[in-house]
Structure formats: structure tokens, C-alpha cells
């Protein structure tokens, strides 16, 4: 039995997808192909650009890792335990999706600046930590970000970039893990129990391995989102070249200076990184679907 409407819906879908997504996107590649190889590599290998990759990739990786750890704990607690405020917390997990990036950007900057709630604490305790280190001649007060006058600085440092990226990536990990934890078959857990495994063994040997595909998917999703993130980062980063300038900001600056070929070249590098992440997620899903059968 064939339902009517195939040709019209498919025709519309393909036309619209081509107009909005495929043609504009292929124009980017077409523009990039006008660059000579030498120009391309000179642009994408420029020290300032390389510094921005380092910051973007490192901060994104660390933020995704933080989310993998704390997101796992949060997802586990939200599914398995009953505590006051659970339902509210569960429904506000999506705040980073629901609130525009510019809004969360200025909010995070305010919190983490010297005069903010968290920034103030970081300053006071950072100074105490440096004083303590000096008094006992522990040589760690040379740590970057730790400062005798400013304490631990979050806003306008790489730590600020990291903070914004943790914020933006949090829902990806929690929302990918929650259904996996809910769907985990309790009978398998009970079987492990009755065969003499303790709770820790049951978790580590039985439950955790089955959650790994969801955890890795959440991690890669958070990482991919962090790579391209712009709005929530630029306010708290301060965009100091070589220090706190993310790659998206660099592309933006090139565009403002009407330097289209350079912007295109750098964008192409980031695009390849994003597509690699997307491909990785598809592979994980394909692999885990095949493996679980």
C-alpha cells in the first residue's frame, strides 16, 4: 500500500534543502577552491590562528570531559535517586539550549568577573592560596591564572572560555545518558547481585560498560558544539589575540575586516573538524546498534 504525496513532499524537501543548506554550503567550498594551496596553508597556519585552534580544541576537550564526568553523575542521580528538587533540576537541564547564547554569555561574564559571585570568591581564595604558597615556600604560585593581586581569574582568561563551554555542553551529555540509564534492564543488575557481585562490581562491570556508547556520544556532541560555539564564549573570553581568542572569533574578525578568503580558509578547517565529529557519532551509533544485537 503506497500512501499519496511522495513526489510533492520529496520534491519540496529536496528543493528547500538545496536552497537553504546545500547551495550556500557548497558556495563556501567553491570560494575556498579559489585560494591557492600556498595562500590556504599560510592562512590556516598563521601563528595567531594556530593559537586559536589550540585554545578552542583544548578548552572544548576539557569542557566535554568535565561534562562527561559531572554529566554522568547528574544523569545517574536524576534517574536513580529521589531527592527534593529533582524534577525541577531535571527540567532546567535544557537551560543552555533554551536561553540564547548572548544572554548566557553576559550572565556568565557577570558571575565570573571580579565583582561577581563566583569571580569574587575565586579572587579572595586565589589570593589566600598564593599567600599560603609563599609562606610555606611552595612554588606553585607561578601557575598561570593564579595571581598575587587578582587571585584566580576566570573571566577574560582561558578558564572563562572553559567555563562557558562547560555550560553550553552540559545538556548534551545528560540528555544522551538519561534514556540509556532508564532503559538499563534491572533484571541484569539483579542477576549480578544474586550471583554475589557487590554494588560497586555490578556498576563497574555490568552497568557502566553498557552506558559507554551513550557517554561517548554525549561527549562528542558536547565537544562538537563547543568547537563552533560563539555567543556564550566571546563575552567571557575578552578575545585577547594569542590568549583568549577562539577560532570562531577569529573568523568573525576576518569578516569584519572584509577579509573573505582568510575567513573562508579558517572556516573550512573548522568545518572539517565538525564533520569529523558528526561522522564519529554516526560510527558510534552504528557500532553500538550492531554490537548490542
Amino acid at each position, binding site marked *: 500500500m503506497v*500512501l499519496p504525496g511522495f513526489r510533492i513532499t520529496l520534491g519540496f524537501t529536496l528543493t528547500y534543502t538545496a536552497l537553504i543548506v546545500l547551495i550556500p554550503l557548497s*558556495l563556501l567550498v567553491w570560494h575556498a577552491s579559489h585560494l591557492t594551496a600556498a595562500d590556504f596553508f599560510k592562512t590556516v597556519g598563521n601563528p595567531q590562528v594556530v593559537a586559536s585552534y589550540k585554545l578552542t580544541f583544548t578548552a572544548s576537550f576539557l569542557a566535554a570531559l568535565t561534562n562527561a564526568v*559531572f554529566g554522568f*553523575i547528574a544523569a545517574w542521580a536524576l534517574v536513580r535517586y529521589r531527592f527534593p528538587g529533582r524534577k525541577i533540576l531535571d527540567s532546567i537541564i535544557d*537551560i543552555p539550549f533554551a536561553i540564547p*547564547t548572548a544572554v548566557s554569555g553576559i*550572565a556568565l561574564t557577570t558571575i565570573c568577573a571580579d565583582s561577581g559571585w563566583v569571580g569574587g570568591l575565586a579572587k579572595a581564595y586565589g589570593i589566600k592560596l598564593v599567600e599560603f604558597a609563599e609562606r610555606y615556600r611552595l612554588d606553585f604560585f607561578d601557575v598561570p591564572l593564579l595571581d598575587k593581586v587578582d587571585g584566580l581569574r576566570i573571566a577574560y582568561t582561558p578558564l572563562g572560555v572553559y567555563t562557558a563551554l562547560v555550560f553550553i555542553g552540559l545538556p548534551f551529555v545528560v540528555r544522551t545518558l538519561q534514556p540509556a540509564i532508564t532503559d538499563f534492564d534491572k533484571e541484569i543488575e539483579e542477576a549480578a547481585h544474586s550471583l554475589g557481585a557487590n554494588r560497586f562490581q555490578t556498576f563497574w562491570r555490568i552497568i557502566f560498560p553498557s552506558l559507554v556508547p551513550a557517554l561517548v556520544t554525549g561527549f562528542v556532541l558536547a565537544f562538537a558544539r563547543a568547537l563552533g560555539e*560563539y*555567543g556564550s564564549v566571546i563575552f567571557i573570553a575578552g578575545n585577547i589575540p594569542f590568549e583568549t581568542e577562539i577560532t570562531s572569533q577569529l573568523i568573525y574578525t576576518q*569578516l569584519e575586516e572584509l577579509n573573505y578568503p582568510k575567513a573562508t580558509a579558517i572556516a573550512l578547517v573548522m568545518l572539517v573538524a565538525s564533520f569529523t565529529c558528526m561522522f564519529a557519532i554516526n560510527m558510534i551509533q552504528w557500532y553500538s546498534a550492531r554490537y548490542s544485537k
Partner: protein
Amino acid sequence: MRFRITEYFVPAILVTLTLVFLTFFLVLPLVTIFVEAFSKGYQAYLNAFNEEYAMSAIYLTIFTAAIAVPVNTIFGVAAAWCITKYRFWGRNVLITIIDLPFAISPVIAGLIFVLAFGKHSGFGGWFVDHNIEIIFAVPGIVLATVFVTFPFVARELIPLMQEQGSLEEEAAVSLGASGWQTFWRITLPNIKWGLIYGIILCNARAMGEFGAVSVVSGNIRGETNTLPLYIETLYASYATVPAFAMATLLAALGLITLVIKTAVEWKIKYDRSKG
């Protein structure tokens, strides 16, 4: 009776960690928006709206969403229909392509429209020659918004319609219903909650998009400033209270979105348990 450390201690630690982590990263930023907006009192908050630019930014934001959301909703329904009701060559590739705008950085999304319609491309040159402004004008903002909100509705509907199958539709058609009748009377009532959910997510993103819109807008006050861009302008000029006052509008929109989302999820669960 022996005290089991894992039974009481571990959950307590995990719950505490969750509370601390989520409070720091979710509750604190949200509270800050409202605290800052009202930090100089109620009157200062209201004064922020008494600006010509504020009103034009709100108007442009609503205008943009009023185009992007319906267009992407129609697309989402059509795409979900052809993808879930039929098998055809390249179907999986199409699903992946629909997801593409999610994988692309907002700045790059803006860039591709600057490249497509800027005066340097042959295509964009034609528009420039005919005095039709696209980039650094409202059409560019609408296009960039349509691009970033492109997958939302389709993405919500595809898994839902996949799960529901086509048996009911097939029964309707074999009893003589037309395609339209089948869609309006059978499919739409079945997918309405998922559809609503997709639309509100699409709307929240359309009204809140910053990066892509920022690239194509040229930031002309009163003309090409959407609400998020206006917030940035205010914040950059140290007008903190007005910036956060505008931010409360978008934060409230986000919160309403979350409430509707929770209600829809509850409703879907309820319908399912009822059978």
C-alpha cells in the same frame, strides 16, 4: 544489621555533587539575569524598554521568527512525511543533510550567506546591481535564521512518525480518504504534541540566534538589530541594566519554552500509558 556504605553514602555524595554542579552552571546564570536587570530598581528596568531602539529590536526579532518558524515547520512536516512513509534511495543521506545546520558553527552559517550574497560573488553581485540589499539588511538576517533553525521541526517529527508507522494512514487511504484528509484527520492529531514541541524549540532558537545573525547583520542600530544583537551593543557600551533588562525577555521566553516542553513530554508519556 551491617551498615552498607554504598547504600547511603554514595547516593548522598552523588546527589550533593549534582546539586552543586547544576546550581553553579544552571541556576546561578539564570538568577543573575534577573538580579542584574532589577539591580537599579523597577523603574530603571522599565526605562530600558522606553527606547526606540529597544522597540525596533523586539519588532525585528518577532518579524524574523514569524517568517523562519512557519517556513521551517512546513518543511519539517513535508520532510518527515517523505522520510518516514516511504523508502527511497539516498534516504539516510537526506536525514544526515537535514542535521547539517546543527553541526555548523553559527559564525560559519553567517559566513556562507555573506559569501553567497556578498558583492564579491557573481550571484550576490546581481542583487547589488539591482539595489536589492540582502547582506547587512533584514533579508540576510531572515535567511541566516532560517538556516540555523532548519532542522528543529523535522528532527522532532522524524523519530516520532517512524515509531508510529503508517498503518492508520494506510487504513484511511484504503477506505477512500485523500492524501490531505489522511494528513489532517489521522497524522496531524497523532503528531501534534511533537509538532508543538518542535515549533517552540525552533521559535526559541529563531528569536535567540546570535552568532549567525551577528555576521550578516552589520549591526545597524534601529535597522538590523535583533534582540540578541541589541543586548550585545548595550553590554559593550556598559549599559548593564538595559542589557539584562532585554535579556530577561529572552530568558523568560526560554523558561516558557522549557515549561511547554515539560508539559508536552508529560502529555506524551500520559497518552502512551493510556495506550
